[in-house]
């Protein structure tokens, strides 16, 4: 029995439809319910519907054998897991953005608003730039508009939200997409099952 941590939302739905076609269907999951655990004993699979940011935690701590998480969430969490496959979808970029025309005064501490505290800290540490991190949980674009920060570090997909708020991308520094991850201990005891599921996903996402 493989336990799969699926992120709630678009990404989880996309991956589930791949797994469903590959023989890992769980009929209960199609019903509108508040259940969070779905199991199909015949198919040897159990799904957990999990908040996207929690997928690496469930996998790292063995509550799930495998999971699907965005590269941004994976890097931010620092979870010690195997990253077995880049699924190639859910693509976006991690970027630094600011109000149009922003110029960085390197004599001053740069105020950086972000959900991705670890990613932003590491990025600016690699640049030797002194920063003041302002952790936020949503609507990050508001921060430079209201003077809370100089820049933001956030994911950018189409860039529409930035444009509509008169912000622009200054630099993109990380490519993001969905990743298939596995608990390291589970991999030792369930390698065949995990590799079989991986193979099905790889075939479907070619």
């Amino acid at each position, binding site marked *: 029995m493989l336990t799969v941590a699926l992120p709630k939302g678009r990404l989880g739905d996309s991956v589930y439809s791949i797994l469903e076609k590959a023989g890992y269907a769980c009929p209960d999951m199609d019903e509108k319910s508040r259940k969070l655990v779905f199991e199909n004993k015949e198919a040897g699979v159990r799904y957990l519907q999990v908040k996207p940011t929690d997928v690496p935690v469930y996998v*790292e*701590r*063995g*509550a799930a054998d495998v999971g699907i998480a965005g590269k941004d969430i994976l890097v931010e969490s620092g979870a*010690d*897991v*195997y*990253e*077995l*496959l*880049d699924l190639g979808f859910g693509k976006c970029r991690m970027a630094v953005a600011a109000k149009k025309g922003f110029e960085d005064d390197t004599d001053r501490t740069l105020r950086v608003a972000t959900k991705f505290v670890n990613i932003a800290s590491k990025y600016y540490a690699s640049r030797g730039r002194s920063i003041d991190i302002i952790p936020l949980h949503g609507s990050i674009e508001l921060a430079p508009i209201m003077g809370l920060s100089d820049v933001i570090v956030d994911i950018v997909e189409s860039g529409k939200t930035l444009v509509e708020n008169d912000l622009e991308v200054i630099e993109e520094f990380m490519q993001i997409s969905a990743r298939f991850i596995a*608990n*390291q*201990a*589970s*991999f*030792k*005891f369930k*390698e065949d099952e995990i590799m079989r599921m991986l193979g099905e996903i790889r075939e479907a996402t070619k």
Partner: protein
Amino acid sequence: MSLTEILRPDERIVLSLRALYESYGYRKYNMSEFEEYSLYMENKNFLVSESVIAFTDLDGRLMALKPDVTLSIVRHSGDSTEERVYYNENVYRPGKAKRGFREISQMGLERIGRIDGYAVSETVCLAAKSLYEVSHDSLIEISHMGFVGGLIRALGCSAALTCELYKLIGAKNTHGIAETARKAGLGEASISKLCAIPSLCGEPEKVLSSAEALCISDEMSDALCQLKNVVSSLAAISNICKVRLDLSLLGEEDYYNGIIFAGFVSGLPARVLSGGQYDMMLRKFGHSGGAIGFALYLSELELLFAPYKPVYDAIVIYDEDSDPAELGRYIDALSNGGTVYPCASCIECTVQGRKVIYFGKDGVKEDALC
């Protein structure tokens, strides 16, 4: 009640491992809770975490609550000495969520001095026996730093690229390996070899055969030869866990050379044992010999054991007016034949027992379970 009956599973494991290590000629090593902080700061890369609990001792020295045992043993061993020691110690490290420090119990052994092929095999064997003692559904995974290190050196990778590749290989991140190697300008043939490493895991025979096809240097061939020797030594030993190879298992290259290994128990989410040959650490301390050892993380085993809920042979509910001496005599006699839980009233009694005895002025009355 006998000692074996009263031992909890974790206590039983510790005593069994003591017997195992001593039967192989290892002696117990006792150490201080504290070491000089500088020892850890100068060897940060060897530690699981850079965060260390430090304090100023009464003599003004900056000390630390030890986050590691091996460093202390190496530091206090002399050059050209042969040491075979085992330990059962607590170390202090940040928890996984990094919200605070934890006291972590670990047991392990270190062999310092002349490290030949037999010494390596014996140490891995003791690690495999230790895992088997914890659970029969356990496994040890073995690798060799010289295989991946040899490949990377043969490909002429820079230090920065090597560091990045080690992380990616350790995470079995094949797409990351390919992307990074391509960006660094490596050719497709080299990229293909690097990308093959994460899948070199599983049954020893299968892995060794696939790995041979990737060898492009003597260093890599020597690594496989040593692995073959360890695997065939283990095949001859009884009471050990399952053996796998995983050539993507890597250690800190500043410290580890040669064989490295990790242990896992079915049902536990992370490795419970880490070990390897670490001659390079001895060189840093100016020693000429070799060293090999491992640590079993006893704290990680807690999830294996059911919560401790004793069932007493007798719960004795006594009258508060009872003569303490008479009550004491009675309890003492009962405890010679089993476990007893004296309690002043039923309401206070929160444990389980096989029978209830009421002890009062009117005498002793036995009753069924309340």
